[in-house]
C-alpha cells in the first residue's frame, strides 16, 4: 500500500505578496483594500455589525427584513435600481443576514469601483422608505421563509429548532428569518430607527479586493464615505449563555421528511476562544469526507445513515457543535445514538494518531486556500477577521494556530465539551405518509 508521506505543503502565496491596507476613516468606517491583478474585476463587501442577535422579542426576522429594504431605494437611487445598475454594468450583487452581521456585496468589472462606492454610500447615508415598498418586501420575505424553511423537509429543525431548544438567551435562540407573526409586527418606523442606529459608518467594515490601486481606491472611498456622519455607539448585546445543567431532548414530527433523522448539539465557546482551533479539527475528524469517522462508521460500515453533516455552526458568540444525520430504512435512532456516543467518547479517552491529526490539518489547509480563491471570498474573510478579531490580516496567519494544535489538546477539548449535560438532542420523525420512504 502506498500512503503519501505527509509533509507540510508549500505555503508560499502570491496573494500574500500583493499589497493590502487596513485603515479607518474619521467617521469610524473601517476600510480594507487588497490588490489582486489576476482578473480585471473587483469585489466590494460591506459588513454592518448587526444581525438577528440584536433583535428584541416580538421583532424576530427584522434584521433580515431590513436587509431587503436596503435594495428598495435611497436618496439618489430608485426602488430596485441598485441591483439593476450593478447588473447593467456586468456586475453581480447580493446581501445576506446572519445572527451576527449583515453584509452587502458586489463584484464588478474593475473600472466600476466608483459606481459601487457611490451606490453603497448613498444607502448608508439615507434610505427612501415608503409603506408600499415595505409591505411588498414583507410579502417577499414571507415567501422566502416558506421557500427555505416551511416547505422543505428538515429545515425547520436545522434553521430554527436547534437553536430554540439549545439556547436560553433570546439573542441566539430565535431564527434569522423570524416568525410570520413577528414579520407582521414590524413597522416602517422600526426600519428608520434601525438604519439610524446600526447603519452608520462606525458600525461597518468595508473591504475591497481586486484589480485596483490602493491610493486611488482610498481617494474614492474618502470622496464618497468621509462625510457620512457617524452614529451613537451601538448597544452591546448580552450573548452570554448560562452553562447547561442537563441534557435537553425533544421530538419533532416533520411534515415533509421521508426518513427519521437525529440531531445532536453541544454548546461550545465563541469564535475567538482558543479552543476553537481544536474544535474545528474535531469537525474535520468526525464529519469531513468519506474517511471521516462518523461517515465511515455510520454510512459505510453500519449503513445506518444516508446523509450526515455537522461541525461548528458558525456563530461569532457562544456556538453549537452539532451533527445531523438522516437515518436509513434499516437504521434507527438508538443504534445511531450509540455509535455517535462511542465515537465522541473515543475522542475524549484516546489521543488520535499523528497520521489522523495531519489529515485533519491538511483539510484545514485546503479550506484555507479555497477561502482565498476568489476576490469575493477574500473580501468576505477580511470583513470577518476585522469584525471578530479586529485584525483583518489574520486571514494569512490563522492557519498557524490550527497547525499548532496537538493530539493531547484535541483530547482535552473533546473532554471539555462532549459531556452528557451539555448535550441537546432532537429526534425527527416523518409526519406524512406521502413522503415516508417506500410510501
Amino acid at each position: 500500500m502506498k500512503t503519501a508521506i505527509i509533509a507540510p505543503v508549500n505555503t508560499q502565496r502570491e496573494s500574500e505578496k500583493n499589497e493590502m491596507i487596513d485603515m479607518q476613516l474619521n467617521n469610524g468606517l473601517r476600510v480594507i483594500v487588497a490588490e489582486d491583478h489576476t482578473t480585471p474585476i473587483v469585489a466590494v463587501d460591506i459588513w454592518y455589525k448587526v444581525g438577528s442577535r440584536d433583535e428584541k422579542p416580538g421583532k424576530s426576522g427584522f434584521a433580515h427584513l431590513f436587509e431587503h429594504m436596503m435594495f428598495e431605494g435611497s436618496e439618489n437611487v430608485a426602488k430596485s435600481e441598485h441591483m439593476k445598475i450593478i447588473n447593467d454594468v456586468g456586475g453581480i450583487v447580493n446581501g445576506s443576514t446572519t445572527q451576527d452581521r449583515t453584509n452587502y456585496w458586489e463584484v464588478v468589472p474593475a473600472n466600476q469601483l466608483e459606481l459601487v462606492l457611490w451606490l453603497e454610500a448613498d444607502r448608508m447615508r439615507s434610505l427612501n422608505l415608503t409603506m408600499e415598498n415595505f409591505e411588498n418586501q414583507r410579502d417577499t420575505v414571507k415567501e422566502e421563509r416558506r421557500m427555505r424553511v416551511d416547505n422543505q423537509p428538515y429545515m425547520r429543525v436545522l434553521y430554527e429548532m436547534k437553536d430554540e431548544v439549545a439556547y436560553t438567551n433570546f439573542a441566539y435562540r430565535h431564527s434569522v428569518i423570524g416568525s410570520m407573526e413577528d414579520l407582521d409586527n414590524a413597522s416602517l418606523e422600526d426600519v428608520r430607527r434601525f438604519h439610524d442606529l446600526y447603519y452608520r459608518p462606525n458600525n461597518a467594515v468595508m473591504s475591497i479586493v481586486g484589480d485596483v490601486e490602493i491610493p486611488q481606491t482610498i481617494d474614492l472611498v474618502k470622496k464618497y464615505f468621509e462625510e457620512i456622519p457617524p452614529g451613537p455607539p451601538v448597544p452591546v448585546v448580552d450573548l452570554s449563555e448560562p452553562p447547561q445543567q442537563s441534557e435537553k431532548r425533544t421530538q419533532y414530527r416533520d411534515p415533509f421528511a421521508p426518513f427519521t433523522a437525529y440531531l445532536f448539539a453541544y454548546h461550545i465557546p465563541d469564535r475567538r476562544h482558543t479552543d476553537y482551533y481544536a474544535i474545528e479539527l474535531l469537525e474535520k475528524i468526525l464529519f469531513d469526507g468519506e474517511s471521516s469517522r462518523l461517515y465511515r462508521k455510520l454510512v459505510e460500515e453500519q449503513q445506518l445513515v444516508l446523509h450526515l453533516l455537522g461541525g461548528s455552526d458558525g456563530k461569532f458568540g457562544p456556538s453549537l457543535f452539532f451533527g445531523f444525520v438522516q437515518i436509513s430504512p434499516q437504521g434507527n435512532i438508538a443504534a445511531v445514538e450509540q455509535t455517535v456516543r462511542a465515537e465522541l467518547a473515543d475522542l475524549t479517552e484516546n489521543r488520535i494518531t499523528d497520521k489522523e491529526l495531519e489529515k485533519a490539518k491538511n483539510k484545514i489547509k485546503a479550506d484555507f486556500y479555497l477561502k482565498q480563491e476568489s476576490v469575493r471570498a477574500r473580501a468576505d474573510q477580511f470583513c470577518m477577521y476585522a469584525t471578530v478579531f479586529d485584525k483583518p490580516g489574520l486571514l494569512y496567519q490563522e492557519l498557524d494556530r490550527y497547525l499548532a494544535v496537538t493530539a493531547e489538546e484535541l483530547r482535552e477539548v473533546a473532554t471539555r465539551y462532549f459531556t452528557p449535560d451539555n448535550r441537546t438532542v432532537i429526534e425527527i420523525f416523518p409526519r406524512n405518509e406521502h413522503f415516508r420512504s417506500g410510501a
Partner: protein
Amino acid sequence: MNHDFQNANMFGFSALKKPPIKERLPHFRIPEVREHTLPNGLHILVIERHTLPKVSFRLGINLGSKYDPAEKKGLSELLSASLKKGTSRRDYQTISDTIESVGGELDSDVNEDGFFVFGEFFTDYLDLGLELLSEISLSPVFPDQEVEKERSKLIANLANENSSPQFLARRRMIELLFQPHPYGCYKTEQSLHNISRLDLQDFHRRYFVPHNSFLVFAGDIKLEEAVRKTEKYFGEWKGGPVDRPEFKLPGVADQPVVNVVDRPGSEQVNLLLGNRLFARNHPDYHRMLVMNKILGGGGSGRLFLYLREEKGYTYGAYSSLNALKETGAWLANAEVRPEVTIDALKAFFEKFQEIKTEPVSSAELKNAKRYLVGSFPLKNETPASIASLLLQQKLYGLPKDYWQKYAHLVDEVSSAEVRQVAEKYIREQQMAVVVVGDAKRLAGQLEKFGQVEVYDVQNRPVR
C-alpha cells in the same frame, strides 16, 4: 457627536446625483489554453495559474446518462457512485484515506451528456492525485458489496427527491418536454434494481476510452509537465472510437398542458413553465441568451421586477435556458403562496406577451449584453471554472475559439432578433405548465392554461 453637526453634514454632502458609470468594459481575455493530444487519442488542455500552490484537473468523458438503457436508467449514476469504491490495486477505504490525508479531493459526476472525474491537489501531491485518477478511471473493480451499498443509497434518495418541490416540478417538466427521448426519462426503484455488476463493467469498458476524452488541468502546472504526467498515468489507456446509440427527437406538443403534482401539506406552489428549445450549438443560442436575460435573468429581469418587486407574489421569478447537446428547454419558474397561483401564472403570460410584441429599448438591450459580457470574467474567475468552460466547448462540439468569440456573438444581437426569438421560442400554445402544491388548495381555474392532469409525489397519474 452633536446632532446639529450631523445634520449640517448631511445637507452639505456633495455627492453626485447620478451614478458614475463607466461606459467601457475592461479588456478581458480567456486565459491562454495550451493543448496536446497523446498518441492514444486523449486530449490534454492546460490553463496555467500559479497564484496558489494547487492544481485542479477534470477528466471529461463523452458518456452521458442519455446512454443508460431505458430499463436500466441510473446506470451511469451508479457507475459514478461506484468508481471510487475499489480498484485492482486499492480498496475503497485505502483510496479515501489516501486522497484525504493530503488534503486532496477526487470525485465524479455525470449529467445528461457527460461524465466527469475531477479533483484538486496541492502541487506537491499532484502525482498522487493523478495516479488515483488514473486508477479509479481505468481499473475500477466494482466490488459487489460496495455496488449494493451505492444502489441502496440511490434508491433511498429517490424518497428524498420526492420530498423536494423543486425536484417534483422538474421531473414532470422533463417528461413533458422530452419523452420518449432519454433526456425525458428518470430513474426509478425498478430501473436501479435492473442494473447488474456486469452492466457496470460493460458500460465502463465501452465508453471509458481515450478517444473523445479530455483531461483539463488548471492551476499551478505547465503544459510540458502535464503532458509528461499524463503520459505516465494514462499512456497505456487504450480503446478506439465508440459506437453510440442515436436518438430521435420527439415532436413538440400541439397544445398547452397543465400538470399538477399534488404535494399534500405544501405551504407554497411551485410554478414551472417551459417550451422545448434547441441544442447548445444552435445559431439562435446567443439571441435567446440576450432575450432571456431581459425577460427573466436574475434580480434585474422583467419577471423578477414584476412578480416580486411589484406584486410581492414570490421571493424570486426567473427564466433560464437549458440547452443540452441534442435538444433543450426554455424554462420559467417562481414559488408563490397558493392564493395567488392564478394571478402569478397570468403575470408570467403577460410578460411573455410583452417581450414577443413590444420592441426592447436600446438601453435595455445594451444593458443585457453588458451584463452577459461583463459578468463573464467574474463568473469564471477560478481555474476550475475555466476548466469547466473548456470541457463544455469540447463536449458540446462548439468551435475551438468559441469562448474567445463569445463576447462578440452576444454583442451582435439586435433588438429585432430579441423579438424574433421570443416569438419563435416562447410558444403559449405549446406551453407546458407544472404546478406543484397541495391540490386541495389549488383553485379550479387552471384549465384555462391547458388540459389539466394530476400526479402524486411518486409520479403516478391520479385521475
